[in-house]
């Protein structure tokens, strides 16, 4: 059924259709609208047989989900940014114990300086946590991915993060096709846990494992994620059969046929990029787009295959591995090792900095002429940066950076238009 609703609401309704049994909520922007909506559905009874628990921290949220999942309940929570970092210890524990929890991450920057706007630093900081990570391009895909995520997680006994851009998607009101309960029930079987806490069949979960077996445990987690590389496309195909939509999968190519330059990105920025690519194609540029939906496990082979015929690729990412450059780019480079491709990293949109068609046109056209730095910072205000660098050279006590920059750009400069 078509609806014009906010992305958070769309995800909440999709999660509700998945019949979750335990939901843990702790507020943090921009995830809050999702759990608010779910809380309302549980309270008014439209979502039954579900415990909605207001916990005292994200650490508790993930911990409650761990207990619930280990007791055989389908468990869900949502978080972002600092909240994700605050629960990290439990995040690793959930994957280590092999508990199929589904968590929405409404991507947001990490402070300091504190910043509530969107980028991918939070989710990507957890790239090695053992969780699967799926990135949504639109609200439609966001809600579709949640339905697939529960099935994947429970089949693999691994937790999954469904990542959607904070505000840009969570707060955007747009058209979505909301599936029916029958459709979801047909696609998603009830949770049949691999292990469960049950007096009828007692087990000890979470033993201390020493050097004699630890590496094996870790390898098995890795093997599980490799297994996911075949499961994810298969489940996406089944999804299309039931819901009639292309959603999920590992990658989405756009105009890649005959493209000399391929732009690689994750999340909602792909839409803007596609508009730019259409316009550049119209101007005769051989350019295409590769959207990465599944970041963990990272589909090395699929990426290599997608880039097989291009001359160069540009990874445009909303994250910065300080001290080296791109995070997604590093993964892509590993995929194309030995293919002799030119590769560029464009760091863009950190902390909610708008990524405009104008800027993309400029940087893509230069890239097409191999005329950009290996690591380029889109729309960086060099004037302000250099001023601060000089200031720091000049005075030992140059004061707090963020405040100095705001003074330089004028507060209005922090706005989005």
């Amino acid at each position, binding site marked *: 059924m078509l609806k014009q609703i906010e992305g958070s609401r769309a995800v909440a309704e999709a999660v509700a259709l998945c019949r979750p049994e335990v939901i843990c909520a702790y507020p943090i922007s921009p995830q809050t609208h999702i759990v608010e909506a779910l809380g309302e559905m549980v309270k008014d009874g439209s979502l039954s047989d579900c415990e909605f628990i207001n916990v005292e921290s994200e650490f508790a949220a993930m911990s409650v989900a761990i207990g619930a999942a280990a007791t055989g309940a389908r468990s869900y929570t949502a978080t972002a940014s600092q909240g994700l970092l605050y629960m990290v210890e439990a995040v690793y524990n959930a994957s*280590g*114990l*092999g508990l199929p929890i589904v968590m929405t991450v409404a991507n947001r920057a990490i402070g300091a300086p504190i910043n509530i706007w969107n980028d991918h630093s939070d989710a990507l900081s957890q790239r090695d946590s053992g969780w699967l990570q799926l990135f949504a391009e639109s609200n439609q895909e966001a809600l579709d991915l949640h339905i697939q995520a529960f099935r994947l997680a429970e089949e693999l*006994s691994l937790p999954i993060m469904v990542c959607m851009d904070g505000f840009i998607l969570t707060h955007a009101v747009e058209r979505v096709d909301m599936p029916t309960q029958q459709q979801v029930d047909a696609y998603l079987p009830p949770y049949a846990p*691999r*292990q*469960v806490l049950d007096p009828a*069949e*007692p*087990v*000890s*979960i*979470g*033993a201390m*494992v020493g050097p004699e*077996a*630890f590496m*094996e*445990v870790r390898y*098995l987690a890795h093997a599980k994620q490799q297994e996911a590389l075949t499961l994810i496309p298969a489940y996406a195909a089944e999804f299309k059969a039931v819901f009639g939509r292309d959603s999920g999968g590992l990658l989405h190519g756009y105009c890649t046929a005959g493209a000399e330059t391929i732009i690689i990105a994750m999340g909602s920025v792909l839409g803007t990029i596609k508009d730019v690519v259409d316009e550049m194609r119209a101007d005769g540029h051989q350019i295409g787009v590769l959207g990465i939906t599944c970041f963990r496990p990272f589909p090395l082979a699929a990426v290599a295959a997608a880039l097989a015929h291009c001359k160069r690729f540009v990874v445009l990412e909303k994250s910065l591995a300080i001290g080296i450059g791109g995070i997604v780019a590093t993964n892509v480079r590993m995929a194309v090792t030995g293919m002799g491709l030119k590769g560029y990293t464009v760091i863009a949109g950190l902390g909610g900095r708008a990524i405009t068609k104008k800027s993309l046109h400029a940087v893509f056209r230069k890239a097409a002429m191999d005329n950009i730095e290996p690591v380029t910072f889109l729309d960086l205000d060099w004037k302000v940066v250099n001023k601060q660098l000089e200031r720091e050279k000049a005075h030992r006590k140059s004061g707090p950076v963020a405040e100095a920059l705001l003074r330089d750009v004028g507060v209005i400069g922090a706005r989005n238009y």
Partner: protein
Amino acid sequence: MDKPFAITLDPGSSLANRTGSWRTLRPEYIDRLPPCNAACPAGENIQDWLFHAESGKYEKAWRSLVENNPMPAIMGRVCYHPCEGACNREQVDSAVGINSVERFLGDEANKQGWQFSPPAAATGRRVLVVGSGPAGLSAAYHLTRLGHQAVIHEAAPLAGGMLRFGIPKYRLPREVLDAEIKRLTDFGVEIHLQSKVTDVRKALADGFDAVFLGVGAHIAKRAYIPAGDACKVLDAVAVLRGMEGESTPLLGRKVVVYGGGNTALDVARTAKRLGAEEAIIVYRRTRKQMPAHPFEVEEALQEGISIKWLTTIKEAGMSEDGGDIMVEKMALDDKGFPQPTGEFERIAADSVVLALGQDADLSLLENVPGLVVNKGLIEVDAGMMTGHPGVFAGGDMAGLERTVTVAVGHGKLAARAIDAWLSGETWTPPPRHELATFERMNPWYYSDAPKTVRPVLDIIRRQSTFDEVLGGLDESNALFEARRCMSCGNCFECDNCYGVCPDNAVIKLGPGKRFKFNLDYCKGCGICATECPCGAIKMVPEEN
């Protein structure tokens, strides 16, 4: 379930890990000798019969008791209970009232008409027992249990010896005495009354395989006191024996008893009950030095007996007006011996009763070869055998510790020795466990419960009648008293060791079967030993 590798494990699988290998000390269950048992002259297994009494199994308790002593009802009255003096519970609150429980069991047995369990198969051996006092009765009983025919010859017209002729009714009612003697005769003990044995060698010749002598000590010691006709001078033995005859002795209104032992008190208290206005005990030493038991002195004083300590009698009834005696004050010298002071005093007295101790009548032993008599006592070995093979002796004639309980113990000991001797062996006492001292206990676990006080007859009736002074316990407080026993040194299955082991390394074997250690898992921490209430666990080093 198809569990994840390593992080999820099957229940209880740690049994594969034998932590017993960590152990350097090993716990062991042991039995220690309870102080009460150790102190009992009759060798009663007090803790054992209390154990049964605790659970209300009185007959079982009584049967355990009579394995060592056939006369609980008597013992429960006349025994001076050294067991209670030794009781560890004294250091928690107060000693367990063992004597009162024993009396309860004895009386219960008489009430219920319990009989001894049948003796062992008859051996055909006959043993002569001379005297039906506590030693003789005890010896006869134990010989009978062992299958021998015990034949008692008693000079007196009634059985019981000193039990009857030495102990007043108010301490030992005669129906109690008679009941327990009857049980013995029902058991198979032959008693021939008024048949004085005059020649032991002759007796041995007439088909007896062994002899036990328990003639007691009935001859009163005399002291020279110049006396006139105005004042009767009698001896305690005669007075007390007289109480059993048709006519009670005539002592007059003012009676003086000379001596400081239990007999002196018995006489004085008897005199009072016979109607004497005054009964005065004269004793040459101090109250502390009196051989009599303090509680008896106390009872006597309660009953209005007056006692003159540090006093001797110089003469009786010599003055013109007669009816009095002259006494001299004494003073203790630096060695603690009483010395005359030259201070004299006259006391009105219709009679003086001498209670200065007794000697045994050893006339029947003349010309028995090998037999040694020393200071009026027969010398016996560890098995109570005299110098003459086959002739054994016990009771007052064989020792200076002259109590009913000691006599009963002698009788039992002699019977066992006789049994061994009859089969050509020499009796050796069984090895004793080490003593269960208070230091080895963990008294925390015993809840507070003070001793039950037995009812005491009111003072007026005590001065006028021969009713029993000390009452008995009823069932409820007998049970209470029995349960105060701490079972020193012997497991009573409190489950402490089983409960306090952090490694579940104690195996419970079920009621009456106690416990055993599972050395596969015992790490030797020693908590079980420390927390055992009665000190029945010992930690011993592991040999490597």
